[in-house]
């Protein structure tokens, strides 16, 4: 295939190094960041700290991989923050109502997330409303609903042990949320690369008019991507409740920005039609590594917020630059 590759290079006009940097720039940035933090503070790369980073990003990671299809399909989901709160409350209330039955509580938490996602999906897909408006409105509705059912108080969750184990238990030395994150990412990656649904998501994001003329089920696919995103936030909400042993209507405030930042930092385009699940995993690692590194270096929280914003803009600008450079 040597000749074929030469033709490909001629067509894309890109040198191999440039294309590698374009396609895997985020990995380079991740590696560079790790080296810099490690040089400044060797404790950054200790096993315990690395596990800590994974534990810290597992919630954002789960939400990011579940929301990636929404972005690939050309949409956006801003409503995942309050869903985290709703799901935690649902799980807490179900535990109480069922006399501490585990499975119904988990299902209720995930189902409320999927339900919110379904409503988003129907509004976007069936009624053709703009995703940013729909999910922004849903952000307000879901937060309001959480406050209505949960009030402003913390709801303590003392048992069952099995539920708390989900949040803070360890297997082979690793916290359970990391396993859930890895499993969710693996399932989503499989769906992305191996199913006709995954391919349809790309097709719709790339060119919805053409997708319709190909007979693809636009409404169904679009509805499903929002449902998956909501369910992901539901899972994260249940884990969070188990981690902190409480449910509150105020949880998850502002987390949607970290989720979208993880997706975009990973290299999935907000324009739709391109991206990958593994990219969102890298994006979550970038965000988590950054938060952790800045904390370890004793950067104040206020300054961290500023630094985080600046780093995100710089990283995306760099990615853009690499892309144009590889095309020139």
């Amino acid at each position, binding site marked *: 295939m040597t000749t074929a590759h030469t033709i*490909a290079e001629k067509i894309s006009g890109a040198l191999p190094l440039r294309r590698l940097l374009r396609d895997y720039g985020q990995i380079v940035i991740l590696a560079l960041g790790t080296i810099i933090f490690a040089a400044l503070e060797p404790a950054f790369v200790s096993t315990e700290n690395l596990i800590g980073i994974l534990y810290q990003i597992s919630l954002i990671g789960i939400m990011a991989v579940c929301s990636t299809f929404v972005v690939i399909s050309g949409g956006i989901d801003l409503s995942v923050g309050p869903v985290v709160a709703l799901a935690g409350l649902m799980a807490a209330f179900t535990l109480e109502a069922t006399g501490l039955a585990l499975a119904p509580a988990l299902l209720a938490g995930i189902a409320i997330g999927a339900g919110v996602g379904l409503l988003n999906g129907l509004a976007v897909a069936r009624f053709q409303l703009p995703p940013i408006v729909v999910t922004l409105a849903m952000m307000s509705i879901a937060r309001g609903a959480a406050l209505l059912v949960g009030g402003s108080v913390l709801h303590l969750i003392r048992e069952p042990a099995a539920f708390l184990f989900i949040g803070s238990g360890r297997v082979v030395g690793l916290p359970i949320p990391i396993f859930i994150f890895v499993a969710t990412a693996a399932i989503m990656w499989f769906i992305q690369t191996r199913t006709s649904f995954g391919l349809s998501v*790309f097709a719709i994001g*790339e060119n919805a008019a053409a997708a319709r003329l*190909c*007979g693809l089920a636009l409404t169904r696919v679009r509805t499903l991507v929002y449902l998956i995103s909501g369910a992901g936030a539901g899972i994260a909400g249940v884990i969070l409740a188990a981690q902190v042993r409480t449910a509150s209507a105020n949880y998850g405030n502002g987390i949607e920005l970290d989720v979208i930042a993880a997706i975009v930092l990973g290299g999935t385009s907000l324009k739709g039609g391109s991206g990958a699940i593994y990219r969102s995993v890298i994006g979550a690692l970038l965000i988590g590594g950054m938060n952790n590194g800045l904390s370890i270096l004793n950067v104040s929280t206020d300054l961290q917020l500023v630094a985080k914003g600046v780093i995100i803009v710089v990283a995306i600008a760099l990615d853009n630059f690499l892309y144009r450079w590889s095309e020139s």
Partner: protein
Amino acid sequence: MSDTMLLSAYGLSKHYGAHHALDGADLDLRAGEVHALVGSNGAGKSTLVKILTGAVGPDAGTLTLAGMPVPFGDPKAALDAGIACIYQEANLVPALSVLDNIVLGRHPTRRFGLLDRSAQRQAVRELLARHDLRLDLDAPVQTLPTVQQKEVEIAKALSLNARVILMDEPTAWLAHAEVEKLFHSIRQLRAQGVAVLYISHILDEIFAIADRVTVIRDGKVRLMAPIAATSKAALVEAMLGRELAVEVGTAHRQMPQSAAGAVALECHGLSKAGLFQDMALQVHQGEIVCITGLVGAKRSEFVRALFGAEPADQGEILIHGRRVSLREPAAAIRHGIGFVPEDRRRDGLFMGLPIGANLVLAYLPLVTRAGLLVRRLTRALGRRQVEDLGIVPARLDLPARALSGGNQQKVLLGRWLAGGARILILDEPTVGVDVGAKADIYQLLRRLASAGAAILIVSSDMEEVLAIADRVIVMAQGRVSRTFTGHEVTQGAILSAASGEVAQ
């Protein structure tokens, strides 16, 4: 035409990697001439245009305008020197008025940055009068017919004091009557001493409008001659090289009256408010039917209704004699219909997705088992289409945007052939496709028809209609104006039906 050399480009070369897009090409334009530039897709035309407009800088060569050197790679310098370009796709702001589009970015202002509207209006009026262009200055550009949009672009170029105007496929989206109007404008430009570089695939147009012609192939100039001293055959030969030229010739002559089989696609009384009324049509197996007519005859709207893309309000559609309801493209696809839309970039291709994905997306169930894509099947299906249709480069993993226009069109056809569609509807299948790929597509369509496919083509290209249609339906104002079969199919008859009276 004067003999003063207005623009001279000498020895222009540009390479991308190992590929020589342009290889020592010369071009000269005289004041007051229409100079045609022809060549297949990938011959180097667009690279040449990009160098002249300053969009890219060449590796070697010189460019002078009226004896003064023009700096390379600087769009502003080219514009200031008086070189303007009118691109195939309109470069206007649709919602703004004609006036605003013409003066966009150079509004004369009074104090406090206020616009001097009356001075603007007066200047543009004078400009239009001088060049015999009649445009309503206050009409939003999006409400104008395509030909008038081209005139707005011409006016815009003139308002920049352009002395050289490059026109890239200016008639690609125009109907026959509109082409004549555009030619009138071009002749006005010539009379005013403007040099026009006219880039087109359509040889008839070149012989109608150009004074001289330059042919490039593989980045080199193969022919430069006064139009009177050359012939269509000579141009085609220069464009394609000798061997290919012979093939195209036979493709055009080949016009078998295939024995029509059973009726595959049929409709009666199909109407959609404000678009088309009472349309009836039959397409038989083994038959190629062309729908032609002027822009605005609502041909695309009609065939889109046949595919369920924008369903009709009333009337019935029958497939193989059975009445069907086509409210969605998915339904039409299940009934074995395939549709290649007019605008392949907007409605057809997934530009960023691999060619292989583009080929299987209309028939995912064929390559899916229990919701899972089977790579072996996907690859086999794609590979077969790439080989059958001669898609170049024959790579399933490259994005569709890497292909030339002709190959993109083959991918769109292949998408339907992959699932064995027996009824094909194609809307302007060869717009922006070079002569070589055009011949490939005609041969392919004929081969499909011989194998029993029913093919319905919407086309404004008269040469195309004459070359491939077994039957021609002429639409005017949303109705069937006339139908021609076999030897009745002549250019004159079709044109009078298209422009004229609706059959009573």
